[in-house]
């Protein structure tokens, strides 16, 4: 009987395998000639400059590659948990946002979150600032996206700000920064109810952190709107209470009363809004030297939701924590461009809305 496996066949197979292995080993040993070794410190600046030039020229893909090289270089050079990564990470996020590469964008945002948590352990104020930065990126993404993804980014942003609030509550240094953040959460609620539909998307809040809805129980649209109103009202009242113990707080409290009035107006409660406005106005009228504040609040056209303008007079920010302005102004400006449906204006001194007499309602609010 003829055996299929002759010695000559075996020899041929062995020779073929050996040559293939040798070729593979040889190719692995030949050093890959890098056109540019971006891992050297001297080249980092050049890589970054070239990345910026690509951005200027609108070559976003090339810019992303260059920023990634710079990012890897910084990591190799300074360490995996070094603050020097943050500026490059910011540029990477901006580039991926411009490229609409949401997978990369979310990847770098997750990295940013993990890095901040690792770097700022035991430094709640710095950690809160990093969380705010991440929240800003989510809001920028929400401006570009639509529907479900917009809602997801707004919810993520709100959660990050809540985490920042929780971090700041741990330390007295963080107290002055709380009010603007609480106001940001309220504003995000407003945008979630008006510009992005939360209807049927409760799963994005309670069931998952991913950008995909999970079927099951969900809050109705009306219930979500009522909840948003209640949260905003509670947060604004909390801001009011925080400032209530400060000396010389008349104009600050009046500004927060005005924001409370705005909140009622945004949710269609005009009577209550009028009462808050009147309370603010009367307090300011009784205060000598408050005319500029009256002018600022009620004599100019203010588009709602207004930026947070009230500042604590007695509790300035601690030194070294000036990274974010904490005002929420920039965020309000970012979010304001989302306000595509019927813009509302705060009533002015000349409007009938403000000058009508509803003293009994004012008394109710006072109580």
């Amino acid at each position: 009987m003829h055996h299929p496996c002759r010695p000559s066949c075996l020899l041929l197979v062995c020779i073929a395998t050996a040559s293939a292995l040798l070729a593979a080993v040889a190719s692995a040993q030949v050093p890959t000639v890098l056109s540019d070794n971006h891992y050297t410190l001297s080249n980092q600046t050049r890589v970054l400059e070239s990345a910026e030039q690509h951005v200027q020229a609108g070559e976003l893909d090339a810019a992303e590659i260059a920023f990634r090289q710079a990012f890897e270089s910084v990591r190799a050079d300074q360490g995996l948990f070094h603050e020097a990564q943050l500026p490059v990470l910011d540029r990477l996020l901006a580039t991926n946002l411009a490229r609409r590469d949401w997978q990369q964008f979310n990847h770098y945002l997750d990295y940013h979150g993990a890095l901040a948590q690792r770097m700022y352990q035991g430094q709640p104020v710095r950690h809160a600032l990093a969380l705010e930065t991440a929240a800003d990126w989510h809001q920028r993404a929400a401006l570009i996206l639509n529907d479900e993804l917009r809602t997801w980014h707004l919810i993520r942003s709100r959660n990050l700000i809540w985490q920042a609030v929780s971090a700041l509550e741990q330390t007295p240094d963080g107290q002055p920064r709380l009010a603007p953040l609480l106001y940001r959460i309220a504003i995000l609620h407003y945008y979630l109810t008006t510009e992005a539909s939360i209807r049927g998307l409760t799963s994005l809040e309670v069931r998952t952190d991913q950008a995909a809805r999970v079927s099951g129980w969900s809050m109705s649209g009306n219930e979500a709107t009522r909840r948003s109103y209640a949260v905003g009202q509670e947060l604004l009242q909390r801001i009011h209470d925080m400032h209530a113990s400060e000396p010389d707080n008349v104009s600050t409290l009046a500004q927060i009363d005005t924001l409370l009035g705005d909140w009622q107006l945004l949710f269609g409660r005009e009577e209550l809004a009028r009462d808050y406005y009147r309370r603010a106005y009367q307090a300011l009228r009784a205060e000598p030297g408050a005319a500029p504040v009256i002018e600022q609040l009620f004599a100019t056209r203010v588009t709602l939701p207004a930026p947070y303008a009230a500042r604590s007079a007695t509790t300035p920010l601690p030194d070294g924590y000036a990274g974010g302005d904490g005002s929420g102004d920039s965020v309000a400006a970012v979010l304001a461009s989302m306000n595509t449906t019927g813009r509302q204006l705060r009533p002015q001194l000349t409007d009938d809305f403000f000058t009508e007499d509803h003293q009994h309602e004012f008394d109710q609010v006072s109580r």
Partner: protein
Amino acid sequence: MSLIRFHVKQGRHLAGARPWRSLAWLAAVALTGCVAPGEGNFIRPPTPAEVEQYNAMVQPEERIVCRTEIPIGSNIPVRKCRLAVDIDETSVFHREQLRRALR
């Protein structure tokens, strides 16, 4: 409760010596009993903002949902907080029961 017991003891001790003081103590005890929350008494349910802050800090499996419900046999609404996971499981269970009953 222990605070109230302490107040009562003090009241008894002082009762013989100075009656006006004991009256003051009794009044204080009565007032404290009315006002102090005490141990194991009513706990305020979390507000919507507190629920949201809590949910932002925990994993999805631990998140809660608080809603105002009207329990069977009553007209008084009650605010109930449940784990979102529990709501889902209960919902699935009830659906299965209904399906079984309709078979």
